[in-house]
């Protein structure tokens, strides 16, 4: 996993686990279980890109995302260039011809790379992060359609995510929020040509439309956000720090997408009408499985000061059947009950819950 080993002793791990399992949990940095770490964000920081964003977390981790677009000729499907990862477009409800054509849109038009200092590009953990973010973005099938120009051409979007600081915690939420903002600030040149002719674009950058329209009927989907949630005992903690992740029983990355309900049926809708949709989720291997186990003082050689092979052997035997002892750290074994995972999902999707809070916070960011 992307995390390096934490330098906590078994006793510290046990203490942390106990205090986080309390109700309400006591987190080392004093946050409540649903509180995010404060962050600063800005968009449009890179003039050479179609869209960019920078997010800086209070613990000093910082990420930059740059979005670049290029025009590419659409290869005929039967010509067969790359057959991986197609986006299955939503079942067309028999729309117009253009709608039908847009079904050609493919997920591979989006290229995403994640760079984390100290890790190789092709490290499994980095690839996992990139695939996780990419999958969330493509899951609704709407994104690739935005890149469609005409039957012969399409945009190829390069999304480069760079973590500037060393990864002090699992960088998933940070990278996801930065990507979200960068995509919101992304603009593509306005198309002047019509139909299937070679595309011509408006030179005026001011006239260029946003990839995700701000207002109007088209302001439907928004880029997804991915939240990392961990379960420690009975507590569910959002935005875990590295230390909290080190004692987590299970960790789940939940990606959700905000769907703005159209104002047409205004009888029901309030202004902040926002529906959260689950688009993808993955369990993340919690680093707690690799933490060193504690030794109860009854079984500690240094404490008893004797070395007796026979008693030692018995201990080895009994270590197996030992029940968890209070205050002695033991790495979690086995999986997670679905009820726990489900309560995590419910907590994420809850109306007026954490996800809403995060989205409200992101809305406050000035999009330039």
């Amino acid at each position, binding site marked *: 996993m992307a995390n390096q080993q934490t330098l906590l002793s078994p006793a510290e791990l046990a203490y942390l686990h106990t205090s986080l399992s309390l109700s309400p949990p006591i987190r080392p940095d004093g946050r409540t279980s649903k509180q995010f770490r404060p962050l600063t964000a800005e968009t449009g920081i890179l003039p050479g890109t179609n869209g960019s964003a920078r997010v800086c977390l209070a613990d000093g981790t910082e990420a930059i995302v740059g979005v670049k677009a290029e025009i590419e000729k659409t290869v005929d499907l039967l010509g067969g260039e790359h057959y991986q990862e197609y986006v299955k477009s939503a079942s067309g409800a028999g729309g117009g011809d253009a709608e039908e054509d847009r079904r050609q849109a493919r997920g591979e038009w989006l290229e995403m790379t994640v760079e984390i200092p100290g890790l190789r590009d092709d490290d499994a953990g980095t690839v996992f992060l990139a695939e996780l973010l990419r999958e969330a973005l493509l899951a609704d099938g709407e994104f690739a359609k935005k890149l469609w120009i005409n039957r012969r051409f399409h945009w190829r979007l390069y999304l480069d995510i760079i973590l500037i600081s060393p990864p002090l915690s699992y960088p998933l939420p940070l990278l996801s929020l930065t990507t979200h903002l960068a995509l919101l600030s992304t603009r593509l040149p306005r198309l002047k040509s019509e139909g299937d002719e070679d595309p011509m674009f408006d030179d005026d950058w001011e006239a260029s439309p946003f990839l995700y329209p701000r207002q109007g009927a088209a302001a439907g989907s928004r880029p997804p956000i991915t939240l990392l949630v961990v379960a420690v005992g009975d507590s569910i903690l959002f935005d875990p720090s590295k230390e909290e992740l080190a004692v987590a029983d299970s960790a789940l990355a939940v990606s959700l997408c905000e769907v703005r309900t159209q104002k047409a049926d205004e009888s029901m809708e309030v202004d902040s009408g926002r529906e959260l949709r689950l688009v993808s989720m993955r369990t993340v291997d919690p680093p707690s499985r690799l933490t060193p186990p504690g030794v109860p003082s009854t079984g500690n050689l240094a404490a008893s000061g004797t*070395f007796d*092979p026979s008693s*030692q*052997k018995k201990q*080895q*035997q*009994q270590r*197996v*059947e*030992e*029940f968890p002892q209070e205050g002695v750290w033991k790495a979690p074994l*086995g999986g997670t009950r679905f009820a726990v995972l489900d309560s995590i999902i419910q907590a994420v999707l809850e109306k007026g819950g954490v996800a809403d809070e995060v989205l409200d916070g992101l809305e406050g960011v000035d999009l330039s």
Partner: protein
Amino acid sequence: MATDTLPSLAIPGTILGPASKYAAGPGTHVYGGNIVSSLLGNVNVTSPAKAPGPAKRLNKITAPSVEELSTISVIRRGRKREVLPDVGNTVLARVVRLMPKQAIVVIQQVGDTVLQTEWQGVIRVQDVRATEQDKVKIHESFKPGDIVRAQVISLGDQANYYLSTASNELGVIMATSDAGNDMVPISWKEFKDPDTGVSEPRKVAKPS
């Protein structure tokens, strides 16, 4: 013992019996008050070894302690399974390299099991013998190529298991002289080449 209720074959996750009635042996673990198999294999139940001497008369009803429970273990017959050296095991190792403060060995056998892979171990100068530890010289205790019987005292660091020969029964059991002949032990600290008559110093294991 109600052995007939036990399954004869087990796969990982098979529930074998309540933890109150049995003790968990190799190849099993305890989960939710039950002994659960953690290996694929045959289920064995071994009754506790009867204490020698007359059985104590029972004068009150007590729950049997852990010592009295029969042990369930899961072992796959007819199949060699990799074992790891563990603390307390007696191992056979071959000396590969000498350094002033320690000898590097390769563990080749744990108990009666020959290992598939080689694990590196180290015998530090203070672990060579129990007495006069300050006078021990590694070069007078081992030579590369010797076969040593030793005990594992620690899982050690990233590379080495820590071994000790600090007991009469532990030490060099097979050695070759400079001339290339097999030698015989003649005292607790010497091996002798029967052909050339030259004796060489070693930490000799007491022949059993």
